[in-house]
């Protein structure tokens, strides 16, 4: 249940932090790692809450639903922050494209992960083991030699040996504390391949402490592979549609051609975006199109007041009781919504929203295949 959630809704946030040190305890509070000076943080300073004006924007957008400290408890790569923000927009987060872009920039700099660092988003105890990726990598050949035949490449078990990802010994382990004693004294004898069940090799008494530690890192890594947000979890091949059928839908039933053109605004789109981004962007442009720019599309509103005055411009905020906008002169105008007030909202993405209730999965995959051909 995420999605507080969210879902929580419990939402896809937890309190763990990434593994960045050898066996280090996770810091109690998020500690922004130093990053190159950003264009808006004072030169030479890391981007963090204290010195970065963008922090307030991120705090405000996220803070509507979550404690900000929870949001940033897990470091994420930039693309993961982008995906998270898109998800939150899909779940009702409200802000302008520029504000979301600002928040993503800030979060990926102040609470990001550079390069190969693994994201280990997880719940669990404060003292849970943090995987050192190098140790896990060093444990891989050892696991392959000693364990893989029975427990499988992903440690999820085979007919010959149990699932280690679900093993209580593994889950209660701290850097070999439970694993070492178990392997040395309690692990059943291992049959020697090709010589029948009776022929067993030695137990694992001879494993060194270092070897146990490497195996502990390797196995914890495999546990972490199953968690939401695990780096190995990426969309697969979404290019499964028929480009010709996609073109037909684009120009016909989908109604896309009434606003878009393969040689105009969409020229080269297949070169600029990955297929999964194409899919997301044409289905959910409001969530996926965040970057401000000369062609940025914003919701506008026309308000006719009780006295007959008509105001029109980009919508700032609206609820059942008040509507506010920027008028043609750029002034902020706020109007109380009375029974005699008329409000007409114009969502530039209305056609995309309307599509959601009628487009089929085949149409979606065909359109993505078509858009991908627009190189």
């Amino acid at each position, binding site marked *: *249940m*995420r*999605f*507080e*959630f*969210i*879902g*929580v*809704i*419990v939402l896809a946030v*937890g*309190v763990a932090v990434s593994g960045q040190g050898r066996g280090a305890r996770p810091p109690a509070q998020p500690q922004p790692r130093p990053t190159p000076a950003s264009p808006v943080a004072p030169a030479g300073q890391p981007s963090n809450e204290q010195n970065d004006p963008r922090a307030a924007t991120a705090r405000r957008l996220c*803070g*509507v*639903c979550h*404690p900000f*400290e*929870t949001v940033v408890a897990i470091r994420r790569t930039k693309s993961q922050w982008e995906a998270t923000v*898109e*998800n939150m927009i*899909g*779940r*009702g*987060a*409200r802000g302008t494209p520029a504000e979301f872009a600002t928040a993503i920039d800030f979060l990926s700099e102040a609470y990001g992960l550079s390069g190969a660092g693994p994201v280990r988003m*997880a*719940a*669990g*105890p*404060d*003292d849970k083991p943090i995987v050192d990726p190098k140790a896990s990598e060093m444990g891989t050949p050892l696991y392959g030699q000693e364990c893989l035949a029975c427990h499988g490449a*992903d440690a*999820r*078990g085979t007919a010959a040996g149990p*699932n280690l990802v*679900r093993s209580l010994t593994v*889950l209660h382990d701290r850097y070999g504390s439970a694993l070492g004693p178990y392997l040395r004294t309690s692990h059943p004898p291992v049959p020697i391949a090709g010589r029948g069940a009776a022929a067993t090799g030695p137990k694992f008494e001879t494993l060194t402490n270092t070897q146990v530690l490497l195996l502990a890192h390797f196995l914890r890594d495999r*546990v972490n*592979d*199953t*968690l*939401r947000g695990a780096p*190995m*979890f990426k*969309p*697969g*091949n979404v*290019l499964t549609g028929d480009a010709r059928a996609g073109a037909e839908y684009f120009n016909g039933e989908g109604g896309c051609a009434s606003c878009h053109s393969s040689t105009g605004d969409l020229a080269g789109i297949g070169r600029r975006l990955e297929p*999964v981004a194409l*899919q*997301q962007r044409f*289905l*959910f442009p409001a*969530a996926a199109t965040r970057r401000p720019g000369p062609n940025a599309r914003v919701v506008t509103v026309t308000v006719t007041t009780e006295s007959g005055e008509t105001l029109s411009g980009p919508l700032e905020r609206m*609820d*059942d*009781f008040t509507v506010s906008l920027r008028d043609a002169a750029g002034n902020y105008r706020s109007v109380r919504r009375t029974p005699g007030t008329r409000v007409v909202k114009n969502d530039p993405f209305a056609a995309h929203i309307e599509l*959601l209730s009628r487009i089929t*999965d085949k149409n*979606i995959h065909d359109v993505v295949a078509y858009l991908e051909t627009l190189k």
Partner: protein
Amino acid sequence: MIRTALLLSLLVFALQTSPTPGQAPPDGWPTYNGDFTGRRFSPLTKINDRNVKGLGLGWSYRLSTPGAGPIKGTPLVVNGIVYLTAPDHVWALDARTGREIWHFENKSKGGIHIGNRGVGIRGDSVFVATPDCHLVSLNIKDGTERWRKTICDLDLYYYASAAPVIVGNHVIAGVSGDDLDVPGYVQSHDADTGEMQWRWYVVPQKKGDPGFDSWPNEDMAKHGGGMTWQPPTYDPELNLIYVTTGNPQPVVAFKNRPGANLFTASIVALNPDDGKMKWYFQSSPNDTHDWDATQTPVLFDADFDGQPRKLLAQASRNGKFFVLDRRDGRALVSSDYVVTNWSLGFDKKGEPIPNPAKNPQIDGTLVTPNQGGATNWPPPSFSPATGLFYVSAAQAYSVWYIYDPGDNPQGWGGTDRGGWSQNMVQAIDYKTGKVRWSHKWEGGGLSGLLSTAGNLLFTGDGSSGNFVALNATTGDPLWHAGVRTSVSNGPITYTLDGLQYVMVGAGDTLWAFVMNE
């Protein structure tokens, strides 16, 4: 004239319904849902549709620990004192002034701190669950600790967030967490000593257990998830608690768990004295979208097909609305309360039939609702005065992907991504399952609901940041107060000194509104 007709119709309806067992007096809010029924309906009328415009601020209280909120729990009000929670925290406040009387803080060993739903109270004890898997009993006088028991294993990434429910000498506690493939359960503790009395596992723990045939093998069954995120409701006459259960594990990648996956995503009736199951109804067979069915199972006694019936209604996260006979779990109504696109109708038991094409796919499938669901944990409300079941709802679309295409996925193995949503309140006619009226919000997000005999429905308008009163019969907005951020819990109401209060949490602040007339 219209008002007279409305009052008459309300009276006629009220005559068709009878008091539901387990209702509480109106001078407090002594349980998570106010009473055992889960209706979150108050008979108070001092604040009503005619005078609500005069509702004003009594006091507000900002959590004394920065960052501990938002307030996602329902405060309890007993003998003029408010008991408010956040993960690891309980505060006792003077209900007349908001002044802090005591504050309990748990020294945490971990666990997800995403929300706490509230305390349970029995006599001079306050019970709370902590994220690090403890059930704690506090002295109601000063918040000092009486006992604490471990109710789950933090190393298995469980945590605790549900408000304990007290039935007799049973403190009933659920467990949270759906990261690793571990079983959900609900258990009961002796209120005085803390000793565990029984535990009921949601999923079969060995071959031959009830529901085992709905799993491919023992390993998948016993790791099959089904967390008990929400407080049960209780019918003292039938002596049954109604427990709701979470989604199966692995959550999204479903290949290795064909079958209905009992008793995940279900409503189950248990005997509170021994934890034995009497019946179940599965709201989401073989769920593949993280749609736990832990939304409040609301109990009311009302006419159905001309007969007085003991009913249970749930607006489930999957977008389906069910009305059951709560004696035996038989479905009387199964319907959609928002548009859904993942099922092929209902089977003869009234349970949805999942459409396999809408299970998550490697190349993505467009599904509504999204992962957050058509609704979620924010509590719904049922008004016996209007006969309407109110739910904070979302028409939400997202694309679902399988990330782990292997034959033996674990944990999550996929997720949804992106999306679009429209939030609203749906008012559902319990007799037909049809939406009588729908009130859409500009803001996003869900808030809890409270209905009253004053023909009012209190809730939040999502990220617009207002606490709002709607006309419970028509859905028309009548009153609002800007509370700066989303209403983050279920509102409550009570009387003190002859004055009616309405209280709501928004972010880190608890707001107490009062009608000073």
